[in-house]
């Protein structure tokens, strides 16, 4: 398995991983914005979306980036200058830290962290700090309210997310994301191994809870109370303009992409194809071409999940603050606890 890796020196591997990390964050962000935010939303609203820049408006993204770079960098006079400036960077850096544990192929990983899922869940909660910092430092009541709403919401939905993942961890017997991929693709459903054993089937409740929690963590509609443009202008982002707003914007969609990556690793078999197709028995037999095929498979699954996230976003109206909290604490958390108990009982029984 390590034939490909050992031929490259350590510094070369490091550069490759850094480049891969940048691609794994920025490419999904761009694709999601163009395919879903521009084109799918337009299609659902019976319009054509951006058409001028490039064929079918495909260059629109670059035009948008150029537009944001040209804008004036505004900052409220009473703002806390330093905290105001670093808040968007804290949010974006949590996305980059998050992608570090996602495996894209047998050798195509950034770091093979043993407590991978746990790390991902821990690091994703760092973005709340950035949001609170942005809300407070803007010296604006709307921003502060948006920041506080975001913090309350993210704390509430982090719990069902962690509890939903526990079911997968119990079934795979590991917190390492690479091991979870292998466990799904090398597994079998009652002896039939034509599909492997994607946890989407056995952990369907966990998958639903995870996707709902992801929707809330990303503050996408129907969980967009922190942004709520009709009452809070733009929530914690109200005072940001130009490049700093662009960083928030990239962070939002890049995190959507990375969470979709993680969900596809946890529930859809990740980069792998069922190992029985090619007669592989473990990760050591997997052919080298999977290092190229794996990222493409991951990208496809990521787009599928991001499509669902965006579909929900464009379809449903916003939850009220109390409905949102009640939904997390009184419905999602009890169901995910029951799911954990059921999974562990079945794990011991089989």
């Amino acid at each position, binding site marked *: 398995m390590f034939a490909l890796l050992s031929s490259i020196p350590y510094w070369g591997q490091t550069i490759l991983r850094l480049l891969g990390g940048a691609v794994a964050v920025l490419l999904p962000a761009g694709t999601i914005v163009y395919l879903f935010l521009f084109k799918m939303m337009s299609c659902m609203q019976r319009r054509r979306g951006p058409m001028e820049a490039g064929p079918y408006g495909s260059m629109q993204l670059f035009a948008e980036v150029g537009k944001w770079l040209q804008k004036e960098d505004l900052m409220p006079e009473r703002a806390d200058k330093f905290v105001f400036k670093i808040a968007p960077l804290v949010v974006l850096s949590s996305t980059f830290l998050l992608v570090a544990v996602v495996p894209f192929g047998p050798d195509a990983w950034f770091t093979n962290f043993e407590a991978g899922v746990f790390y991902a869940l821990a690091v994703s909660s760092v973005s709340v700090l950035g949001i*609170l910092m942005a809300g407070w430092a803007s010296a604006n009541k709307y921003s502060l309210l948006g920041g506080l709403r975001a913090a309350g919401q993210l704390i509430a939905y982090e719990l069902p997310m962690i509890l939903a993942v526990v079911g997968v961890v119990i079934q795979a017997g590991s917190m390492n994301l690479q091991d979870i991929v292998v466990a799904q693709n090398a597994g079998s459903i009652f002896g039939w191994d034509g599909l492997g054993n994607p946890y989407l089937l056995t952990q369907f409740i966990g998958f639903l809870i995870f996707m709902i929690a992801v929707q809330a963590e990303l503050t996408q509609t129907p969980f967009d109370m922190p942004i709520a443009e009709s009452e809070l202008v733009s929530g914690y982002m109200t005072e940001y303009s130009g490049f700093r707003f662009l960083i928030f914007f990239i962070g939002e969609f890049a995190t959507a992409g990375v969470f979709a990556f993680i969900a596809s690793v946890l529930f859809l078999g990740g980069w792998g194809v069922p190992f029985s197709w090619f007669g592989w028995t473990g990760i050591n037999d997997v052919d080298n071409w999977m290092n190229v095929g794996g990222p493409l498979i991951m990208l496809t699954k990521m787009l599928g999940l991001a499509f669902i996230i965006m579909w929900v976003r464009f379809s449903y109206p916003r939850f009220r603050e109390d409905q949102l909290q009640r939904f997390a604490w009184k419905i999602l958390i009890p169901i995910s606890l029951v799911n954990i108990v059921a999974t562990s009982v079945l794990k011991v029984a089989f």
Partner: protein
Amino acid sequence: MVAQNIAFGIIAAIMVVGALRVVTVNNVVHAALWLVLVLAGAAAQYVLLTAEFVAVTQVLVYIGAVMVLFLFGTMLTRAQLGKEKQLNNPTWYLGIPASLLLLGVMILALTSSFGDEKLPTDSELVSTQAISDQIFGPYLLPFWALSFVLLVAVIGAIVLARKD
């Protein structure tokens, strides 16, 4: 001098500066943000000790939950921008003997239990399974006791919050 020692020195220096800023800075939110830096430094030190799981727990519990709640609470009640006067508690100097006492106890505990023993530079990764075997094996009773303390705190919080 191995690389770990150099990294330890740099991170420790950042943590000391951060800890001093927590108590000297004139703004509650800034103090909390400096505290985040100190806690993140502690997580980095755990990584240097090859204790991944503990490091991740440090990030999840202290940065992701405790500090977010601190910031949430201060922002909800009073978190002025700019400098505040009178942030110091009038009995702040009582903290000095308390922290010196804590330092003494920790030095005593470390030297009496480890002495001149050194960690091997290529120490094995502490696996999550090993930690859970320890928690649910020899340390089961302290683990339960801690759970009860947390349960008491939760019940106390509910009682306080519902008294309206």
